């Protein structure tokens, strides 16, 4: 298990992997008039946690679990294909791979001794949760901690985007995150348990509007966030 500070460093939005540039679908949901205030933001974050958050956390924990295994390249390739099958939207696949590439760049520079070469060599980059699993391994995190980082990032990314997109009171948004902490921990714990299953059995929680928001957002010429 990693030291508390190492866990905080990886979960920090200031970790240089470009997370601040993403709203995780919130910008499109706001433009569609579906998220307008603190209450609809709360419902949005709960839905994200239960769907994209659970899937990302489970795959990150599974990649962390495969990090020291023999046959790690094969395990990671399988996880990559299974995550593709859970990401119907090409815009979301592309965002996940771009975020993976950014995190990989940071991981290689920060932990030069760690090996990331077994990640699938896909032109657009490996999926972000897979890279997070290996970065977590390099930092000494266990699968449960990696799942916590992933679940936490699911809600904090959209929440800080909401402050900018809707002009919400930052104290109220932070109070909302505090209220969601228990749900976030529960999703991380469930993801870490699920990650022990074979890749095809990992969670596949879907959200039709997440696909629709991601595809709509990808058509915009002007936008504040990259996703």
């Amino acid at each position, binding site marked *: 298990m990693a030291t508390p500070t190492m866990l905080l460093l990886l979960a920090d939005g200031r970790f240089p992997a470009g997370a601040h540039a993403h709203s995780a*679908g919130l*910008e*499109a*949901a706001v*433009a*569609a008039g*579906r*998220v307008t205030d603190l209450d*609809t933001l709360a*419902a*949005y*974050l*709960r*839905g*994200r*946690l*239960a*769907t994209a958050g659970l899937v990302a956390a489970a795959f990150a924990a599974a990649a962390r679990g495969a990090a020291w295994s023999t046959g790690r390249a094969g395990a990671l390739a399988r996880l990559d*294909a*299974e995550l*593709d*099958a*859970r*990401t*119907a*939207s*090409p*815009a979301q*696949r592309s965002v996940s791979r771009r975020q993976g590439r950014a995190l990989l760049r940071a991981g290689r520079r920060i932990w030069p001794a760690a090996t990331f070469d077994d990640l699938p060599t896909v032109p657009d980059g490996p999926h972000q949760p897979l890279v997070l699993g290996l970065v977590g391994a390099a930092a000494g995190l266990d699968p449960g901690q990696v799942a916590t980082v992933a679940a936490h990032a699911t809600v904090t990314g959209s929440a800080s985007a909401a402050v900018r997109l809707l002009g919400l009171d930052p104290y109220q948004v932070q109070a909302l995150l505090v209220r969601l902490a228990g*749900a976030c921990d529960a999703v991380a714990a469930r993801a870490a348990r699920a990650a022990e299953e074979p890749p*095809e059995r990992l*969670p*596949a*929680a*879907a*959200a*039709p*509007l*997440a*696909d*629709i928001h991601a*595809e*709509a957002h*990808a*058509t*915009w*010429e*002007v*936008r504040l966030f990259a996703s």
Partner: protein
Amino acid sequence: MRATARLAARVDRHGRTTLVELRGESPLLLRQVPAPGGGLTVYVVGGAAGPLAGDDLRLDVEVGPGAAVRVHTVAASVALPGRPGAVSRMLVRATVAERATLLWLPEQLVAAAGCAHVADSRVDVAAGGTLHWRDELICGRYGEQPGNVEVNTWVDLDGRPLLRQSLAVGPNAAGWAGPAVLAGAPATGSLLIVDPDRPAEPPAVGVTWARLPLAGGPATLWSATAPDAHTLREYLEPETALDTIAASGGRGERGVVRVG
């Protein structure tokens, strides 16, 4: 109630699809009906209300090399509550061989108040197989909040994962009615088209629907939410969906979303 049904189709020496097996038991009764062309149409006839919580139903569909089968249901199925704590399950296990076609176009699944239902579909499509697979879920009867329903769709193409989707609605599914998942829409569904003769189509999007080319092969998923079953069906009718493909001429038209 436990019930199993099985349908197996082959091509005879004249090139016509024939059923080598067609058996079921209430509430999963199978009926063959005459169909135009060389294919074959089978209806699933509900022999009882339900599924009721506690029911365990399984349907196996096997489409052999070159055979073509179309499956419909005669009516929507309504998942209903049963004894407390019980869950109803419906498993559809389908295999589609090379050059074979399976069109799985059932009526909707309706999640009644208080139900607890899991619908599992596991489909294996061989390289060169064609699949149309539609899932439609109506969250509650008129003016009703749904019970817990999970719709799991697992599709492999040529032994590799193509689609894994698990949609959960109801009191146990956090945020399901919120703006990240359905935004209050009572109807949602998807249509998967795997067709070796059509490349995956370019993405397109509207306010409540999207056309999504999948990563794992020549396959496209239409995904939609709607205010009612009728509107949903308009998005997920294969003929309409394929017309949209034809009309777009593969140029990747993307729908109507304002620039923000």
